[in-house]
Every structure is written in structure tokens, then in C-alpha cells.
């Protein structure tokens, strides 16, 4: 039998079950679409795995799953989000991200043109972040068993010798720095949800933060205690998590927390708190007071940190409360979100 297979019909074609069956259709999808988009020497070898060299330092590894809906949103799509999210998880250790894996779970009927667009954006995001997608997997599930497309990733990177960013490093008096405005990603996504479409120019902040991190480490060295990217649950969840892990509390100044006016307006309308809304291109750093100004200056000098701000400090607190002086003059807690963020009716 000859190995003839019709060319992938990208503009009109759809994923069918044969694209996940392990046969020619799958091989064609992988070579014709994914290899094309991610193109690198490791994938070109066509092995079930990829071997790579790592330089000196400790390795870090992370894994993540992407199920965002809608798949395309202002400022990105599920593919760019998968690259940025994985890169950022590695970068928060102060590490240089190197290699990613990508597993695609595709629903039968998914349009090939959409898949191609997502893969190309993913490839582009990886190239600009200086990482390579060196191994992958493709599964197709029956119609109704997935919401179009899910992507799972793993990533590895290398931390410079001597750098150990972790919550237990935080001390009373440490400063809390944030790299920019809060809530952009979550509001951009919500503005495109089917039952909640509203008109706005807000775009997702989805971005790879490793270069910003490198500049911060350069400026702050061991004065940087830890970094986190405040994704789901927003800044509130991230700081509560750090408070518990570091056995401290935090006191924030609401006035210092940067929020774009249109994000603040959308939150007003929807009854949401920007501190609970997701970000995909922001980081929180807990740094010693001695290096705070230097790190902040380094952040502000970077395009992804131009709105960076010092927003509060670590305090001794057995209850691990994240407290905030409100811009109105009173005080309150910034708590974890209880359950999913649901809008209020009045």
C-alpha cells in the first residue's frame, strides 16, 4: 500500500478521530502542522522524547494545564497562554526557562485553521521567549468530550547557582513589589464570554516574564526572597498563600496598587474585586527593604515592569492576615476568594 494521504485542508478541514488514532493522519498533522509551527532540531528528529544538555545550576521543572474559554481572547489565545504560563512558572524560581513540552487534547470537529493559528502563535511565543517546544503529544476525543482544545505543558529551566527563591525566606519588614496593573487578563477573558460580552479595549497582559526576572535578580541578588505570578485568584490568593507559607502577615496600601481605569470600571460594573481577578503577565516579588528601591528601578526600566509599584510590607501576624489600608482611610482584610468569583446583583 502506498503511503499517500491527501494534504491537510487547513482552511476548511476539521479534526476527526483519525487525527488521534496513531495512523498516517496523525503523523501528517504532527509533521504538517505542529513541526511546522514549532520547528526545531529536537522535533525534527521525530523521537518519542528529546534529549538535551543543561548547563550548570539546579534544574527546575513545572507542569500546567490550559482549559481557557474562549480559546481566542484580546491579547492572546490558549497557545500563547500555555507558553507564557509555563515560562513564568519556571521564571518565578529565578530560573532561565529552556525547554517545554506540549500535549494537545483536541475535540473532534475542531477547525484545522484554528489549530494552525494557535500552534503558530505558540511557536512564535516560544521563539520570542527563547525556549523550545521539544516534545509533544496529540489526542483527539469525541465531540462533546472536550471544550474545543485543551493544552497541557511541562517546562524545564536552570536556576543560577546560589539563588533559592522561596516563601520561607520572607522576613518582617520585607517589601511587596508588583510588576504592573492588576486584573487585565481576567477582565479581557470575561469581556468575551458568551453570556457576558461587553465592549472594552482591555487586552490580556499575557507575557513571558523571565527577562524581567533576570533583570530583577541582577539588581536585587539575594535580597529577593521570592516571586510568584498572581494568576487565578489574583493578588489576593497569591499573598494569602505566601503569608501562610512564610508564617507572616502583609499590610498593603490600596492607593499604591496599580489598576487600569477601564479594568477598575469593568470590576465596578460586574461587582468584582480587581485583587481577585487573574493576571498572566504580572509578578509579585517579596524583597528585603535594602534592595527594594534598586529592584523597583530595574522593574520600571523593563517594558513589562513600567507600571511596577511597591504596594506594602510583610508584618508579624500569627493569623497570617493580608490587611489593607483602603484608599478611603479605613482598614480591611484582603481574603482568599470563596469559590468561583460570581458577580453580585446589587
Amino acid at each position: 500500500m502506498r503511503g499517500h494521504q491527501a494534504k491537510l485542508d487547513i482552511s476548511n478541514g476539521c479534526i476527526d478521530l483519525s487525527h488521534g488514532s496513531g495512523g498516517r493522519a496523525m503523523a501528517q498533522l504532527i509533521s504538517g502542522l505542529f513541526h511546522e509551527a514549532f520547528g526545531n532540531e529536537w522535533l525534527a528528529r521525530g523521537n518519542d522524547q528529546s534529549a538535551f544538555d543543561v548547563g550548570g545550576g539546579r534544574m527546575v521543572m513545572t507542569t500546567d494545564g490550559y482549559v481557557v474559554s474562549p480559546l481566542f481572547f484580546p491579547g492572546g489565545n490558549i497557545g500563547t497562554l500555555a507558553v507564557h504560563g509555563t515560562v513564568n512558572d519556571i521564571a518565578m524560581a529565578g530560573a532561565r526557562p529552556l525547554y517545554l513540552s506540549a500535549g494537545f487534547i483536541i475535540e473532534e470537529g475542531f477547525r484545522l485553521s484554528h489549530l494552525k493559528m494557535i500552534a503558530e502563535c505558540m511557536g512564535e511565543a516560544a521563539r520570542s521567549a527563547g525556549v523550545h517546544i521539544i516534545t509533544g503529544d496529540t489526542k483527539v476525543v469525541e465531540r462533546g468530550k472536550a471544550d474545543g482544545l485543551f493544552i497541557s505543558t511541562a517546562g524545564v529551566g536552570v536556576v543560577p547557582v546560589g539563588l533559592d527563591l522561596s516563601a520561607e525566606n520572607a522576613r518582617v519588614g520585607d517589601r511587596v513589589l508588583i510588576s504592573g496593573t492588576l486584573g487585565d487578563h481576567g477582565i479581557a477573558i470575561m469581556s468575551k464570554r458568551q453570556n457576558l460580552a461587553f465592549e472594552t479595549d482591555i487586552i490580556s497582559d499575557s507575557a513571558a516574564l523571565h527577562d524581567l526576572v533576570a533583570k530583577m535578580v541582577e539588581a536585587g541578588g539575594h535580597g529577593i526572597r521570592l516571586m510568584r505570578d498572581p494568576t487565578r485568584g489574583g493578588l489576593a490568593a497569591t499573598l494569602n498563600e505566601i503569608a501562610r507559607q512564610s508564617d507572616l502577615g502583609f499590610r498593603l496600601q490600596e492607593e499604591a496598587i496599580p489598576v487600569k481605569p477601564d479594568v477598575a470600571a469593568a470590576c465596578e460594573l460586574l461587582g468584582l474585586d480587581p485583587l481577585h481577578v487573574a493576571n498572566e503577565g504580572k509578578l509579585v516579588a517579596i524583597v528585603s527593604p535594602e534592595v527594594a528601591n534598586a529592584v523597583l528601578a530595574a522593574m520600571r526600566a523593563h517594558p513589562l515592569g513600567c507600571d511596577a509599584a511597591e504596594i506594602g510590607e510583610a508584618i508579624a501576624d500569627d493569623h497570617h492576615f493580608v490587611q489593607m489600608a483602603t484608599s478611603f482611610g479605613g482598614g480591611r482584610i484582603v481574603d482568599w476568594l470563596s469559590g468561583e468569583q460570581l458577580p453580585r446583583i446589587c
Partner: protein
Amino acid sequence: MKYVHEFRDKEIALGVAKAIGTEVDLARPYRFMEFCGGHTHTISRYGLEDMLPNNVRMVHGPGCPVCVLPAGRIDMAIHLAMRPEVILCGYGDLMRVPGSQGASLLKAKARGADVRMVYSTIDAIRIAEENPAREVVFFAIGFETTTPPTAIMIRLAEKKKLSNFSVFCNHVLTPPAMQNILKSCGIRNIGHVEIDGFIGPAHVSVIIGTTPYEFVAEEFGKPIVITGFEPLDMMQAILMLVRQVNEHRHEVENQYRRAVIRDGNLRAKEEVSNVFELRDRFEWRGLGPVPYSGLRLKPAYTKYDAELRFDMGELCVADNPACKCAAILRGIRKPVDCELFGKICTPVTPMGSCMVSSEGACAAHWTYGRFRDHQQRPAS
């Protein structure tokens, strides 16, 4: 945000706080109930309590439409949602409200019920049009603010001749509940209600105006200041209440003049009275049955009444006997006085009405204010 930031101005707020501090009589307490959940949220969200003298205390009333919905009504909605032909539509804050035994619409959805969150009654109409083979039920809740959109929706359904659409009506009224709080002093051996004045509802008053409160002010001798939801609105309203108390006045004053007029929104009131009529009584979670406090559809619209259409039958579920919501809603107890608070009753696992939404007294204290339980309040 134009027209919002102006009402959150710290400098002006500090000026009003100073005036309150100067004008209060330190020899007496000032206990003011904010009826609306929206006001409770503002107090907690902006930390207003920190800006008031120690003898001015805010009592968080029952004005959160989600909180006062009895668990039995939630159970009724869940039973309805579990019917395979039904799509149940409702506002977002309803999704996590606990019925009996920890059930909720969110959990029913996970078990296969078709429950959809909508932002507007128009969305529910659209869903009914898109699903002609299904029964679409709108879970209507709320005070006078959300009632006009429900009335308009029902008339729209009639105009569109929708035969697969109905409403599970749980709309309630504010003035009867205010009267109930004041009238039921000591009835349940939970102590005496001691309230020196009311912060009157904001959005509710946009619809009903200021006249319905005049009876309450006169009959019970309590001052009422109708005010907006912004923190500066509230600070000014508290100052106005302090002045009324000091001058032994009990009037209905309107701080929210930019939105509220004496007669309210006549068009909205007409829409409501065309479609709805009073129920003899309606159960409020935390308050119990309150006479003439709930609405149902008029006879001409009963074909849109889900309770009749699906023969739903009233379900009654008793709250946890240790729950102190009834006393907390009346200002007799504080959240921390309840032995369930923060232990088995938290926003994740609410046991009583006050913990159900972020506008409830207990949830607001837990979410925003519980750090104060661990610190001494600075003397002012």
C-alpha cells in the same frame, strides 16, 4: 471613573469623620442599621468602621436578597432544576446559596442540572427562544430594584407568545421587613432590638421613592436617611443620622438626591403593579414569616408562574438551631457572638443567611473585618 472617584475622596471623608467625631454625644450610643446588603458591603470594603467614634456602631440589617431567601426556596429551585426538561436561569449570586444539607445550584449543576447564570432577564428570554423544546424558568429574586426587570420580562414573554417560559418568583419588599424588625422586639427571647436610626436603601429607593419610609419613621420614632452606596454617601448619611438623634428628630431625609426622588420611578412602579400582587406572607431567612412582604404573579399572568406550572409545593427547612442570624440581623448580636461563626460557618460552608453572600453581616465581617477581633480598636 468620573462620578465614582469623587464619592471616594479620602480628604473629604476625613473631614466628615471629624465632624461626626465632634458632634456625637459621648455619653450615649448611636446604633444605626444599614438595611441594604450593598451598604454592608461598602462599610466592610472601605473599612468605614475604623473612621467612626467608638460609640457609633453600624448594625448590619437583612437587606441582602440572597441572604434572606429561605433554604426551602433554594431546595425548591434545585428540585426544579433537576427536572430534565428544565433550564433554570438565575443571577450569579444565587449559585452558591446553600439549601438543606449543603445542596446548592452549583452542586446541582455538577450533578447534571441545566443551571445557567444570566446577567439580565433578557438573557433568560433569549435562552427560552433558543430552546423551544425545553422549559426555561427564571429564578427571580431581589428587592424592589430587581422586580421591574422581571415584570418587563414577563410582559415581553407574553408579547413574544413564549409558551416554554416561566418565573419562580421570590421578590420581596423592603418597608414590611423594616417594620418587622422594629415590631418584633423581644418576641423571640433573643433580646431587644436597639436601633437609633436607619440608613435607608439606595437602589430600592430609586424605584419606590422616599414616601414608603415615612410611616416607619413616624410610627417607630426612628430617623431614616436614604443614601447611596459610595463610602462618602454613607459617611454623610451617618452624620445626618447623628444630627437627627441629637436634635430628637425622626424624619426621612434623602442624602441620595442625585438618584432618588420622593415619588420614585413611576413607570417602574406601574410595571410592577401591572404584573405582581402581594402574598399574604413570605418567609425570610433569619426573620421568619413577614406579612405582606413578598410578591407573586397576578391572576392574568399565572401561566408564567413556575410554582403553579410545575406544582412545586412549598418546602420548609429549619436553620441550624445554634445559628444566631435572627439576632444578628436585628443587631442584637454580633457575628462573633455566634458559636458557629468562623468554625463550621464560613463563606465556603455557610450555615446561616448572614454568611451566604459577601453582603451578609457575617460574611462581610469574616471576609473584610475579622482582623479587628484580634486587635484593640484605637481610642478615638
